């Protein structure tokens, strides 16, 4: 059983995504990742990047201090943001407070939301992502779990004679996969969650995490590789 995938460690250049580095150095506010993201495709002048009209109206009303509109946004987004934060932070007791950290930024900065720059959901998840990183630091996460530096490994073999590292992955049950997901590092869990719990495109994940498009795809691949290792460990290989 199992399909073999060849993996080559071809390139060990380090990639550090802007938000984390800048968050660490305290030079990035919660709202900046989209502004500094040079890799996402530019929006055309009148495009609102898929923010639904009713949500646009709600965030505009929120900008004017309309609490009923804000409550509607809260009811709509708090469960989604909370789910994302719970799966990254893994501590249910801190989720409510971090969700409120995110929504407080939304309340205070609603006027700065720019629909041509990002979807409302990406904007909120971008804030949540940064808050999650900060919360993990407060909770004493290990530095290596938070550092975004990872080799930009190419998974397809190249002609440079690098040694292929082979990873076997068989068919797995949902329960085993879910349990393995819990073992992923936060950065890997983040891309998986955004792709499959939130159905984000890779462009949106790039915006939310502040990473180049290629890094998003590479990170997805690494997440799969890490999962395969975890599954192999658990099945006693």
């Amino acid at each position: 059983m199992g399909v073999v995938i060849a993996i080559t460690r071809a390139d060990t250049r380090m990639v550090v995504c802007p938000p984390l580095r800048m968050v660490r150095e305290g030079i990035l506010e919660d709202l900046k990742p989209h502004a500094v993201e040079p890799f996402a495709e530019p929006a055309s002048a009148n495009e609102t990047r898929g923010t639904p009209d009713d949500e646009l109206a709600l965030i505009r009303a929120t900008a004017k201090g309309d609490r009923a509109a804000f409550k509607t946004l809260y009811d709509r987004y708090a469960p989604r943001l909370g789910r994302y934060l719970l799966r990254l932070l893994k501590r249910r007791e801190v989720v409510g407070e971090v969700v409120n950290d995110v929504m407080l930024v939304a309340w205070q900065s609603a006027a700065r939301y720019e629909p041509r720059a990002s979807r409302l959901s990406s904007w909120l998840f971008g804030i949540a992502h940064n808050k999650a990183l900060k919360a993990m630091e407060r909770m004493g996460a290990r530095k290596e779990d938070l550092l975004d530096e990872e080799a930009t490994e190419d998974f397809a073999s190249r002609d440079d004679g690098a040694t292929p590292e082979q990873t076997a992955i068989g068919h797995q049950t949902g329960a085993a996969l879910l349990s393995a997901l819990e073992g992923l590092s936060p950065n890997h869990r983040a891309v998986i969650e955004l792709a499959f719990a939130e159905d984000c495109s890779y462009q949106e994940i790039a915006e939310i995490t502040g990473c180049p498009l290629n890094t998003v795809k590479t990170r997805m691949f690494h997440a799969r590789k890490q999962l395969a290792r975890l599954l192999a460990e658990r099945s006693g290989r």
Partner: protein
Amino acid sequence: MTAERSRQHELVFRSLPFYANGTLNPQETGQLEAHLAGCLSCQAELVRWRDLAAAARSGPEWSPSPADWAAMESRIDRADGRARDTPIGFRETIRSWFAIAPAPMRWAFAAQAALVVVLAGALLFRPGGARIYETLSTPEKVAPSDRARLHVVFAEDATEREIRAALQDLKAVIVYGPSPTGVYTVELPFAASAREQLDQAIARAKANVKIRFAAPPG
């Protein structure tokens, strides 16, 4: 495998998770499907991504409790208060009292505070009353005084005569208001330190059907 096919395979292989979640654009989808039809490796990988997607979607969920929203409101009150350079709001006041109370008093105080919140809640969330809440951090734009004061909101259908009658009943005079959200600040004929008299006045105000809300400022 030709170089072109190898390049195409790499491209498709990397894009499979986003094919699995349906977020590729039509052009990317077309290119991917053209390769996928003839590549067993990509087909197998797609199956695994779909399994993984299903697992991710079945992970733990979270939803906010009423206490989370209450905390949110408290924080936006505070944030707005800070932005407008005003004193801290009602809930925050309760919280800070609670924080500075000696430990043995806390449970007694918590019980009292819970009662206050329930009573205030009953007033705040009367039909048409939802907007009152934010006025609790409205700046006091009147000169300070050592007289007791109340924030009062009258019923929407209260006539001028009924308002006058309610004020006379409390022996109160309006010192500020209405605020943009309809709050009046009224002054009472006794010192701010006279807690018992203040409590009586509040009880009296609450008993008046033409007064929707009454509480000490701040």
